[in-house]
């Protein structure tokens, strides 16, 4: 007869040890529940670029998130828990974005991710976040695909997108300058999506595209493109060129004196991209979601808070990138408070369809988080260079403000297929 050499006492001891180990190290979801049952801080991963094409804007984005977190902590934290942040450079590179997101979730115990400038990076982070069910606030990337075919249940998009800005600008441009358009497009996802949105609107409003120039990312010399534009002689150039490419382009267009003829429309002009440039570099009409001199309650006080929080920053006033970084983080923390829990599904539900009053967001019209696309529907401003600035930093002159309904990206709801709640991993952060 087989006689075991393991005693009953030893067997019981082993079982208890194995059970304890499983509870502690076991399936990931269990670990997260254990973590949440303590009063440990809520950890937010800041996925902001600190190098590459969007390094400068990434710094601004990050400052916005940090100010929102600091303000929440000054009020006693969220659900009584301190909020901590952890930053890793996403390098304006999608592969790095994936790696950073993976590390933040699995090794740094971040329950939420915030930050993006490049749509390629945002898409990469969004995919990782969805795999783990971690809420991700895409603060500043503005490709229509982010709230279209690349949307996710865990991802919320806070910037206006190319379609919103194009809608605000194109009808106005056709009426004012003519219908013959030329597209100058950065050859990557945001540029292509924005150009596609522009083409669609031109068809709708009776405009024509005479040519499209695809500009590779990293282009520093635009002279060939500018010669081609002169040869084609369009009424309007619709430029979807971002980051450092755009800075070089602006400088070269200004040198040629081509800023006023043909007319230029740029979908969005991020504040960090133009801060410190001469006013003649700010030609054309461009979109933005916010400006530091909007004549609205709370704006001046917000600027003061920024200056107090970042006294050493060369950028002396906040811009749209900072604003989006701040707003998405503040609203994320507010949603956790409203939900009364850090459970991801509960927080997602607290964000979906949430209406943010205009006065809270320091914009002209109420904003709403679209429950179908997860994009914030908000006021879109058209601006141009301010030739009579009230102070050194007063670079923009706001021309119009459009309601969220007027500039809504109508293609996004059809393209966006959010994962179901059941298909999204659930956990408490």
């Amino acid at each position, binding site marked *: 007869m087989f006689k075991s050499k393991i005693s009953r006492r030893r067997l019981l001891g082993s079982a208890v040890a194995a059970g304890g180990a499983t509870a502690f190290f076991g399936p990931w979801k269990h670990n997260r529940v254990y973590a949440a049952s303590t009063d440990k801080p809520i950890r937010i991963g800041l996925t902001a670029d600190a*190098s*590459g094409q969007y*390094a*400068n804007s990434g*710094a601004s984005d990050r400052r916005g998130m940090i100010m929102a977190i600091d303000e929440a902590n000054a009020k006693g934290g969220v659900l009584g828990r301190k909020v901590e942040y952890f930053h890793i450079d996403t390098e304006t590179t999608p592969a790095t974005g994936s790696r950073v997101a993976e590390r933040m979730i699995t090794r740094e115990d971040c329950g939420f991710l915030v930050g993006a400038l490049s749509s390629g990076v945002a898409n990469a982070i969004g995919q990782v976040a969805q795999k783990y069910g971690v809420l991700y606030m895409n603060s500043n990337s503005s490709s229509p695909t982010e709230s279209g075919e690349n949307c996710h249940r865990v991802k919320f998009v806070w910037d206006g997108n190319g379609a919103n800005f194009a809608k605000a600008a194109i009808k106005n441009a056709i009426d004012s300058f003519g219908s013959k358009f030329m597209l100058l497009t950065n*050859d990557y996802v945001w540029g292509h999506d924005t150009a596609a949105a522009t083409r669609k609107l031109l068809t709708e409003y009776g405009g024509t595209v005479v040519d499209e*120039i*695809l*500009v*590779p990312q*990293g*282009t*520093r*010399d635009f*002279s*060939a*493109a*500018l*010669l*081609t534009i*002169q*040869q084609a002689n369009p009424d309007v150039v619709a430029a979807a060129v971002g980051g*450092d490419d755009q*800075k*070089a382009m602006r*400088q*070269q267009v200004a*040198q*040629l*004196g*081509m800023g006023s003829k043909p007319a230029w429309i740029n979908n969005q002009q991020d504040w*960090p*991209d*133009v*801060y*410190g*440039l*001469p006013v003649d*570099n700010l030609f054309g009409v461009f979109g933005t979601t916010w400006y530091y001199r909007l004549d609205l309650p709370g704006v001046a006080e917000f600027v003061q808070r920024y200056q107090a929080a970042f006294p050493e920053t*060369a*950028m002396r006033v906040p811009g749209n990138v900072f604003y989006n970084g701040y707003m998405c983080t503040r609203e994320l923390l507010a949603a956790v408070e409203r939900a009364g829990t850090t459970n991801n599904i509960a927080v997602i539900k607290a964000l979906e369809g949430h209406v943010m009053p205009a006065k809270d967001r320091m914009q002209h019209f109420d904003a709403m988080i679209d429950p179908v696309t997860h994009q914030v529907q908000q006021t879109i401003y058209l601006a141009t260079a301010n030739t009579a600035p009230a102070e050194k930093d007063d670079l923009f002159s706001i021309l119009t403000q459009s309601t969220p309904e007027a500039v809504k990206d109508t293609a996004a709801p059809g393209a966006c297929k959010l994962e179901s709640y059941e298909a999204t991993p659930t956990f408490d952060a």
Partner: protein
Amino acid sequence: MLALLPHIVNGLTLGLLFALIALGFMLIVGVMEVINLAHGSLFTLGAYLALSTIGADWFAGTGFGSWWLGLPVAARYVVALALGPLLAGAAGLLLELCLRPTYGKAPLYGLLLTFGAALVIEEVIRLVWGTGEQHLPIPAGIDGAFLLGGLIFSTYKFFAAGFSIVAILGVWLFLERTPYGAIIKAGAHDSEMVRALGYDLSKLRLLVFGFGAALAGLAGVIMAPIWGLRPHLGIDVVIPAFLIIVIGGVGSFWGAVIAAILVGLAVGVTGAYAPAWSLLSMYVLLVLVLGFRSRGLLGRKSALEN
């Protein structure tokens, strides 16, 4: 053909600017056989130093600063055009001193050290001048645009191309017509013989590295009004410079100049007819040239091949 002509002119000017960018890189690789990955950062440093010279941001509050800022931009620009490269050259001298322990070892050591130096210089720029975009002012006389064949061209770009021709000829005359140039060339060809003839090889290397760094700085001052000025500008410089010396043939002065013009033409003309391929065109050119001649257009055997 008439439609192509402006793009050829544009490609030629672009090529001359590329030649200016590659000049210092070529000199250091050719003579010292060190691939200086800090070339782009020295380029950027030169431009930032010129910016501070013109804008006087660090001494504006002094009496001298007030007098200086009272001078016309043209005068300050000329001084900046000299001072920026000189100080970048001084940074190059320091870098060469750091490089000395790597001599005689595998090229990877020098490569890694200059890569580290590039990161350090970029971070120093970030700390001193901030992360934002800056604008290098230029004199009104070379700013603006002019009409040629019904098309608008940038005056400054043509000035920069003309300046590149002068710089290229100046460096060539220095290498070909002065005793220092002869020693530098001899050092590149047979450094042991130069040492045996009683020349101090350490000083020679110091001089060459400083000169190459100053040329990088000079290119930075010239290019900043076209490309803009930001701390990571150097990234845009190293790759074209490296491609140009490989296409031209490592160590060949005129090879690099011809390669730069070919690269400029390739980028300029592709930019007109297949703009999405404009940046790729320089790599296609590299493949074509190396496919037919592995040492580049005018290259000879280099120690880097060992």
